[in-house]
Structure formats: structure tokens, C-alpha cells
């Protein structure tokens, strides 16, 4: 690897997890050892929380309840619109309500294995422990989970597991969980413990004496750019899948909050770990702005297939049973259609590459419910998946009850994010990162129904407990907008904003975003190669050049200007895209969602290289023109033994 | 709104039945009119019962109008800037005409009292019997037409009003919705027909 792409720095390690006690006791031990802030002092401390998704919403509500002064920020009009609202399938918890052999340990084990041995054992175990409390909390809030006729909660199974531990609310689990957190948050706003800053976008982090002490944010309605201060900053701004332009994320989902914190010194871990979800509605045209997920739960009853012959363009229903290839059932008899996402996605890509894909451009596979409809009856299928089928029909104009759905993988989730320790604190003291925004607990691949679990675990239970250890040193010296660090940050943001407006070139932010996304998908998507990634890095640098010399935004920054918002986000995506490619290039193994063509088993499965790559890659930003610095956090597996993942 | 509406509805039921006595001749009709003025006598002096009814009605009408006007004003304040284009989807003709329909009904009631109760605008004057006034009025096709239009409007007002009142009183639900709707429709139609019968019969000479 040529030197100029990155340099290697000191290793990094988590020092907060008490590894001197067995894994099952570490979380309670950490809570015990951590310091507390007494209630009278909490009132004197302010915490900024950026984001109101499952992670940020639950954290802000809980911190407000605990008596801290919370300032909450989000870019939409209402906290209820955070993209967690879109999660469909469900949330895992080790309740073992099905008596099918589930346990905290099994959830822990499945998640470490599912993450292809690139997650931290300590964090994952804590996640599994806390999972049960989440369900209790949500039910008490009135979340209308699916229930059985006896009045008890229903469960279903999700990819990568053989037990039924997924709680769900029809196809709208994220929505219902988010509304629970949102309502708790609104209750705190009414109680005066949480200050709300709607339509306000974080654009920089303010660091004073080495501690995160505030943010610079722009009021998207008035355009005013201002500074906000606190004793600690929590970032819960969600994932960065939109670097691919087309993804299942919301249009406003961005990397800006974490990227600018990264540029202020927070390490960015595993940026290349992205999850490609196997069941999305395929792309139709070049005007397309967004991809829509069809919940993975569909794979419980839907069967995935393509024609056996390449180029078979008969309508699906005309292809006889023995000329169909149910390739997941064939290749993975034990898990069948329920293999983990990375595997299902890659196999879909493989059959399409073989020329057996269906639909426009041969980029799709069938997800067929004919057998389920026959077995369960149409009403039962409707009850289970009705809203998803309607959504599919609405978007494609086809009736999935009659013809099989066509699906194709799409970027969906980013396992990478800001590096945090066991306390969820980043490398900048006083800045905590929770939810999808951190690099978290999923290693190189996230199992279905675990992101909701992680977001709520972080927000309701983990962060409110760990942050007190940090705040026990506070309250810190007052800072206000006259502090040099604040002035510098504010001016920096104003200058960059003005710069975007001044270029006045000939291309819109969307056109750059599209081009970047296309490049990332082609060269840093489902399959990555040394050659492709190098090409991508060169090309991204050119795009960046052109962006800063040929962008056209229009309007000013003293008013509602959606083009300007987009431009700022694209600027960050371009820089992030480059780091993702560098990360993908340096990791010359395949693991989970990161598939390097050079590293595969004879059967075409991802081939890990534990000897050389069993670490978290935490990247340090360096000023313009210098290569980023790689810090490695070694991963050790005490409780789950490193093994080749097998779902056969 | 719902309560005052229902009070008025109850009165209308009684009133319609009373009106239908016109078919059993002048005697019966007039004696009904006299009866209502003297019922309860001698325990209750003079026209007590009638006045109780009148006061109840008046209170209901005032309350109803007051509620209607304040809702109307609230709606105006809630949408000061109107749509350039607005399409109604679920609104029935009945629900859309609640307000102006109500105003017309009010005008009708005033005219109606001046016509048949006080006789002020009645060709027979106020010294006649109710039955004479009735016949005199409805022999004029224009008056009958005005009555008919008003009564039909009232029917529509009630069709929506009854369904609306069950909603407002929290008595509707998915299972009942159809029944309530059907009942509102049936009831409003019955009442409308009942009220139409007398004026039309007079007009066509069935009653004279």
C-alpha cells in the first residue's frame, strides 16, 4: 500500500470495561465503579443531545428525567420524524418468551458471530443484557406490539438466528418504538427539563481545554448560525448510508454531525463497514431519489429465486417449478432464506452477475409468496405483511399477491461510525456518541432487528448511566460565545457556508451527490477490489475539486435554503467517501458486509484474515493534504471462539 | 350543540305528530292546539306547559345558534387564508350545508311563527283558528314551496346532525357506524315526509 494513502499511529484501546470480572458481571461492575452525580448538582449541568431518533430521543428524555438540563437538536420539524421511524421489521430481545432456548448468552453469541467477529465482546454482551429492559420500557409506554390471542407478546424470527426473539408491531416497529421515545421526550419538554431546537442542524463541535463543550448550529428556518454550550455533548445523528446517494435512509440523513466532530479530533472507526440490505425495491430510473426497503421479515415466508437458465425472460408465473433456482435454500439448507443480510445480498449479486437476474437490466431476484399464500391463506399473509405489500404495489404499480415481488440489495445501514469506548465516549472527552452514529456493537455486519435494540439500549440505559462518570468532574467552567474557541468555530462555519454560496458554478449539489453515490456503489459497494478502490479514491478527489469550483447553490444563508443544506451535507459525504475507500482498501480481508474480491473461500464466501485484521480501524483526521492516521484497537475473543461463520 | 339539537329534534317529533292531526279534520287539530295550551290545568295555570316548551325551545335554539356561530368563527380564524383550489371528498351535501342550511331554517322558523302561531303574516290574520291559518297558508303554492324547501333542508340538516350528534356524544364506533348512518337517513326522511304531507295535502286539496 503506498504510503500516501494513510499512516499508522499508536494503537488504541478501551479502558472502561472492567475486564477483571467475568463478562456477565462487567456491566453492573462498571455501573458500580462509575461515579455518580447527585441530583442537586444535575440541575446545574447541561447536556446537548444532537438527534431525536431512538438513540437521541430516548437519551434526551431519560437525561431530562434524571434532572439534567438537556438541549435537544434535530433537523426535521418534529422529533417524531427521525429516520428510526422507518424501521419495519422488529427489535430483538433475549426474553425467551418462546421457550425456544434463547438467553442473553445466545443473543450475545449470535450477535458476535453475525458481526463476523469484528465487534467488541464486552459491548455486545451488555447489549444482550439490557435488551430485556427495553421491551419492558416500551410496553409500559404503550407501544402496541403485536400480541397473541392470549394477550401476550408475539415474536418472529429474523435472519441469522434460529430462535424467535424479535418483537414487532406489524411492519412499523421503528415507528411505534420511536413514538414511545418521542412521547417521553415531549413529556420532558413540557416539564421544562428539555429545551427543543427543531430544524436546527449541527455544523461543528466546540472544544475548550480538550473537552467537548458545545456545538455550532444553523437554524434552518431563519438561517441564523449560532453557538450552544453544555457540560457534555451527545451525538445521535444516525447513519451515513446516504454517501451512496441512493439508500434506504431519509433524504436528510447525513454524516455532517459526526464528520465535523471527526475533523475536530474524534476517531472514525470502520467507515467501510456498510450493510447492503438484500430486500429492497429495485431502481427504476435515473431520476430516482430514494430506495425503499421491504422488511427482512418477508424472508420468513417469502422464497427467493431466479430462473435456472440465464436470460430467461418469461414472466415469473410462466416459469415452471423445476426451472427455478431457490438458491438460498440450495446453498444454505440450515438457514435457507433466513441467512444473514450480507450473505443474502451477495448471493443476489452473484446470480445477477451470472446473468440470471430478473426485471429491468437483470438487476433483481424474485421474492415469492405463492407458497405462503397457499399454505396460510391470503388473509393471514395480508395480516402479517399487508402494509409492505401495499407499499410495494404503490411504488411499482405491480400486485405482489399475484406476481412475485422483485427485490435487489440496497445500502441500508452503516456499522462504522465514530469510535467510542465502553462508556460510549469518543476520543474527545465529553463527547459521547450513541445509536447508528457510533461504530458500536455490530462488527462487520449487523443482524436484523439489532439496530433498534442498540439505539434504545444506548439511549435509555447505557449512556444515562455512563455519562455521570464523566460529569462527576463537572460542572465545568462556564463558556460562552465570546470564548476564542467558540468564535473560531462559529466563524469557520460562516465562512464555509458563504464559500458554498460564492462558487456559483454550473452543477447542483444533487448532481455531485449522484455522481459520488454511483461511484461508491460501483467501487465500494457489495464487492470491493484493490484496483477499484484506488480508482475510486482518485475519482473522489477529482469530484471534490470540481465540487469546490463548480457548485451552484443560489439564494443566501439568512433564510430557509434547502439547496444550501444539501450542499453542506454533500461536501462532507465527499470527504467521508474517500476515507471509506481508504479503509476498504487497507482491509485486505473480507468480513461481514465488507467483501474484498481478493479474499474469498473456494465457495465464494467471505474469507476473514483474523491474524492480520482482527482489529477495529479507528481513523484520525489530519489537516488538508495529509494522509489519515490509522489507530488499531485489537479485538480479543474470550467467550465466542473465532471461527469461520457458517450458515450451511 | 348536540344536546340543543336533540331537544329540538324531540320537539319536532311531537310537532310532526301534532301536525298530522290535520288529517282528522279541523276539530281535532284545533283541539290539539287548545289542549297544548291548557294541558295541566288547573294544577298549572294558563299556558304553563306551552311556555315551558317554548322556553326550552328558545334556550335550545339560542344555545344551538350560539354554538354554531362560535364554531363558524373559530373555523374562520383557523383558516384565514383560503385554498385557491379545494376539493371535497367525503363531505356530503348535507354536511356542507349545515351552516347556511341552518340559517335558512332559522329564517323559516321566524316566518313560520309569524305565519301560523301569531298569524301576523297569515291571510287569515291572528284571530282565526290554527286550522284556518294552516289551510290559508298552504293554499298558496309559493308558501308551500318555501315550506317544502325548508323542510327538505331541515331533513338534510338532521341527517348529518343525527350522525354528528352520535359522534359528538361519543356513541359511534366502527360497528355502529353503518347503523347510525342508516338510522339518521331513515329518521330524517321520515320526518321530512311527515312534515311535507300536511302542506302538500292542503295544496292539492286533500285537506280543506
Amino acid at each position, binding site marked *: 500500500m503506498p504510503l500516501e494513502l494513510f499512516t499508522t499511529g499508536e494503537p488504541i484501546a478501551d479502558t472502561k470495561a472492567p475486564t477483571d470480572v467475568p463478562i456477565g458481571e462487567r456491566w453492573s461492575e462498571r455501573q458500580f465503579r462509575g461515579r455518580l452525580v447527585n441530583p442537586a448538582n444535575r440541575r446545574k449541568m447541561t447536556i446537548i443531545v444532537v438527534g431525536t431518533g431512538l438513540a437521541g430521543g430516548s437519551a434526551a428524555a431519560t437525561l431530562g428525567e434524571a434532572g439534567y438540563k438537556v438541549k435537544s437538536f434535530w433537523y*426535521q*420539524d418534529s422529533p417524531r*420524524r427521525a*429516520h428510526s*421511524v422507518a424501521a419495519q421489521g422488529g427489535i430483538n430481545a433475549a426474553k425467551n418468551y418462546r421457550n425456544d432456548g434463547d438467553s442473553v448468552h445466545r443473543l450475545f453469541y449470535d450477535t458476535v458471530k453475525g458481526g463476523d467477529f469484528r465487534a467488541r465482546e464486552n459491548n455486545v454482551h451488555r447489549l444482550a443484557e439490557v435488551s430485556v429492559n427495553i421491551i*419492558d*420500557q416500551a*410496553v*409500559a*409506554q404503550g407501544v*402496541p406490539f403485536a400480541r397473541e390471542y392470549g*394477550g401476550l407478546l408475539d415474536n418472529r424470527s429474523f435472519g441469522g438466528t434460529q430462535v424467535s426473539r424479535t418483537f414487532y*408491531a*406489524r411492519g412499523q416497529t421503528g415507528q*411505534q418504538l420511536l413514538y414511545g421515545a418521542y*412521547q417521553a421526550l415531549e413529556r420532558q419538554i413540557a416539564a421544562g427539563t428539555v429545551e427543543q431546537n427543531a430544524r436546527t442542524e449541527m455544523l461543528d463541535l466546540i472544544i475548550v481545554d480538550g473537552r467537548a463543550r458545545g456545538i455550532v448550529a444553523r437554524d434552518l*428556518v431563519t438561517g441564523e448560525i449560532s453557538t450552544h454550550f453544555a457540560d457534555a455533548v451527545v451525538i445521535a445523528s444516525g447513519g451515513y448510508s446516504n454517501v451512496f*446517494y*441512493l439508500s*434506504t435512509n*431519509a*433524504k436528510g440523513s447525513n454524516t455532517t454531525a459526526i464528520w465535523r466532530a471527526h475533523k475536530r479530533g474524534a476517531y472514525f472507526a470502520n467507515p467501510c463497514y456498510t450493510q447492503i440490505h438484500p430486500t429492497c425495491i429495485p431502481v*427504476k*430510473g435515473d*431520476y430516482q*431519489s430514494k430506495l425503499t426497503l421491504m422488511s427482512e421479515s418477508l424472508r420468513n415466508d417469502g422464497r427467493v429465486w431466479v430462473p435456472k437458465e440465464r436470460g430467461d425472460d418469461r414472466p415469473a408465473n410462466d416459469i415452471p417449478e423445476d426451472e427455478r433456482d431457490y438458491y438460498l435454500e440450495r446453498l444454505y439448507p440450515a438457514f435457507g432464506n433466513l441467512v444473514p443480510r450480507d450473505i443474502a445480498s451477495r448471493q443476489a449479486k452473484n446470480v445477477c452477475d451470472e446473468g440470471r437476474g430478473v426485471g*429491468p*437490466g437483470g*438487476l433483481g431476484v424474485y421474492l415469492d409468496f405463492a407458497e405462503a399464500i397457499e399454505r396460510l391463506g391470503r388473509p393471514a399473509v395480508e395480516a402479517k405483511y399487508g402494509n409492505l405489500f401495499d407499499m410495494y404495489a*404503490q411504488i411499482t*404499480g405491480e400486485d405482489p399477491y399475484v406476481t412475485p415481488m422483485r427485490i435487489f440489495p440496497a445500502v441500508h445501514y452503516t456499522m462504522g461510525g465514530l469510535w467510542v469506548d465502553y462508556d460510549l465516549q469518543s476520543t474527545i472527552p465529553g463527547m459521547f456518541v450513541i445509536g447508528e452514529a457510533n461504530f458500536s456493537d455490530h462488527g462487520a455486519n449487523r443482524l436484523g432487528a439489532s439496530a433498534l435494540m442498540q439505539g434504545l439500549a444506548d439511549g*435509555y*440505559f447505557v449512556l444515562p448511566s455512563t455519562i455521570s462518570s464523566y460529569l462527576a468532574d463537572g460542572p465545568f467552567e462556564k463558556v460562552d460565545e465570546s470564548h476564542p474557541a467558540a468564535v473560531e468555530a462559529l466563524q469557520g462555519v460562516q465562512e464555509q457556508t458563504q464559500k458554498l454560496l460564492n462558487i456559483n458554478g454550473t452543477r*447542483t449539489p*444533487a448532481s455531485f451527490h449522484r455522481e459520488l453515490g*454511483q461511484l461508491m456503489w*460501483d467501487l465500494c459497494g457489495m464487492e470491493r477490489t484493490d484496483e477499484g478502490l484506488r480508482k475510486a479514491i482518485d475519482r473522489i478527489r477529482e469530484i471534490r475539486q470540481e465540487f469546490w469550483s463548480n457548485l451552484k447553490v*443560489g*439564494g443566501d444563508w439568512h433564510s*430557509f435554503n434547502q*439547496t444550501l443544506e444539501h450542499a453542506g451535507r454533500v461536501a462532507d459525504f465527499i470527504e467521508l467517501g474517500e476515507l471509506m475507500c481508504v479503509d476498504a482498501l487497507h482491509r485486505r480481508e473480507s468480513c461481514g458486509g465488507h467483501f474484498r474480491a481478493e479474499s474469498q473461500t473456494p465457495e465464494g464466501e467471505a474469507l476473514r484474515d483474523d491474524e492480520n485484521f482482527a482489529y477495529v480501524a479507528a481513523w484520525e483526521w489530519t489537516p488538508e493534504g495529509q494522509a489519515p492516521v490509522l489507530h488499531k484497537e485489537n479485538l480479543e475473543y474470550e467467550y465466542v471462539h473465532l471461527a469461520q461463520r457458517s450458515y450451511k | 350543540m348536540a344536546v340543543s339539537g336533540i331537544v329540538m329534534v324531540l320537539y319536532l317529533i311531537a310537532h310532526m305528530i301534532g301536525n298530522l292531526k290535520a288529517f282528522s279534520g279541523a276539530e281535532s287539530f284545533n283541539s290539539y292546539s287548545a289542549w297544548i295550551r291548557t294541558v295541566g290545568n288547573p294544577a298549572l295555570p294558563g299556558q304553563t306547559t306551552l311556555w315551558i316548551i317554548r322556553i326550552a325551545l328558545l334556550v335550545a335554539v339560542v344555545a344551538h345558534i350560539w354554538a354554531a356561530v362560535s364554531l363558524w368563527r*373559530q373555523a374562520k380564524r*383557523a*383558516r384565514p387564508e*383560503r*385554498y385557491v383550489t*379545494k*376539493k371535497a*371528498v*367525503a*363531505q356530503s351535501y348535507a*354536511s*356542507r350545508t349545515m351552516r347556511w342550511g341552518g340559517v335558512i331554517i332559522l329564517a323559516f322558523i321566524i316566518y313560520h311563527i309569524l305565519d301560523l302561531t301569531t298569524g301576523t303574516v297569515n291571510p287569515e290574520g291572528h284571530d282565526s283558528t290554527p286550522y284556518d291559518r294552516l289551510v290559508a297558508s298552504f293554499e298558496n303554492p309559493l308558501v308551500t314551496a318555501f315550506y317544502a324547501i325548508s323542510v327538505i333542508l331541515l331533513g338534510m340538516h338532521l341527517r348529518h346532525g343525527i350522525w354528528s350528534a*352520535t*359522534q*359528538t*356524544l*361519543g356513541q*359511534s364506533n*366502527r360497528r355502529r357506524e353503518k347503523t347510525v348512518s342508516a338510522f339518521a337517513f331513515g329518521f330524517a326522511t321520515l320526518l321530512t315526509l311527515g312534515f311535507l304531507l300536511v302542506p302538500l295535502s292542503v295544496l292539492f286539496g286533500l285537506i280543506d
Partner: protein
Amino acid sequence: MTASMQSSVGNPGAEKRGMNLTLRIWRQQGPTAKGKMVTYKITDISPDMSFLEMLDVLNEQLILQGDDPVAFDHDCREGICGMCGVMINGQAHGPQQTTTCQLHMRSFKDGDSIDIEPWRASPFPVIKDLAVDRRAFDRIIQAGGYISVPTGTAPDAHATPVPKADSDAAFDAATCIGCGACVAACPNASSMLFTAAKVTHLGLMPQGQPERNDRVVNMIAQQDREGFGGCTNIGECSAACPKGISMETISRLNHDLLGALRAGARPKS
């Protein structure tokens, strides 16, 4: 061949492509500015586009011409966040009972003229063009649209079984996405359906019982304070609601309200 999803895809609607449309769009610089309808011609619109993708196309052109693009709210573009919403030819979210982002151009014909306006209600002031401020909804929730259960105090989830029928009905009401189409469509600009959906959702769950009376009186008091109109049971709201929230929820709210008032519950001032 690599599976490239973005460029190598032909447009299956290609032969159908080429709808030409006349758009009349409400343009308003800011909250206090005066607005007006402005006409735009747009060509070559694919029937497979979503309504918002059609507006994207228009905006890309406007930006490049140096004109101000049309501001409109949107985020998830999959019908779940409730951020999008405009009046399309006089109907909230347009001619189908779905969200604006899920409306597709196949609902229109070549040559059509489409009027696009913002939600109109004084509690939803216009921010710019088609974007309005709907935070009044959040304040209605703040008034009582929650169950008070501090984190960590919950009993085991199976401690209280909930009859499936109640839970399912609660879910139906809980699917309200807070888009505001009900207000926009209601001739009285009433927020009754939105409020009723939340009152119904929480009122049907056993966990929601302790605060049931206070919840309904306070939420109603707040919606009046916000300046929404009163409900006269017209039903436009439910017909426009992309989540099909039923009129039954309004009846249920009224039922709870009367019960609460009878039980002596009074709004906090």
C-alpha cells in the same frame, strides 16, 4: 458485469415517458411575505416518478437557471415520517389516499394542470412556499399524549396481558404519522383526527388508563389554544388521512372527554 444499480438500468417506463404538465405552485418568500400562484411548464415526466421526484426535476432546472427552487418538506420518502404534505389539486396529499411522497405520477395524465399549495391553517404558518410549521402538533402531544413512565421503572412486559383486539385497535390509531393532512383537508381546519388518534391509541392500552381523563381534557384544551377549528364531524380528515385513521377515533375521544368532564377532570391552565 458488475451489478450496478444506478446507471445501467434502463427506464422501463421509457416508452411511456414524456408527460408534459402545467404546474401552478404557491410561492411565498417567507412567513410574512405575500404569496401567489406561479405557473411552471414541465416536460418529460415519467409516470414511474414519485410526485416529489417530479418536483426535484423542476427544482434542478430552477437552480441552474438561477431561480429560487420551490421549498417543500420531505424526508423519508417512503410514507412513514409524515414530513411531506402539500395540497394537490385541492386535495391533501393529492388524489390517492397516501402521502405526497408515495403519490406517483401515474396518477396524472399528459397535459394535466396541477395546483400545488401548502397546508392552510393558522396554527400551521407557512415557512416558505410549500413548507409549513407543524410544531403545534408536538405541543398537543406535550399536553398529555404520553404515558408517564420514567426509564427503568417498568414491570416485566408480560405482567399485563393486553387483549389482542385492543392492542390491534390501538395500533391502528397509533399509526398516525402527524402529517397534518387531516387539518389541511378539514373545512374547519380542525386537528381533531390527529388528537383523537393519540387519545385512542393510549386509551385502549391498560398502561394508558391512569392518565386517561387528564390526557383527553388537556390535549383538547391545547388544540383549542393552538387555534385549530372545532370538529363538526364532516369526515374530510379521515378521507384524506394517508394512514386511514378512522372517524371512530373521534367518537372515542368525545366519549372519553364527556366521561372525563363528568369525572371532574379539568384542563391544566
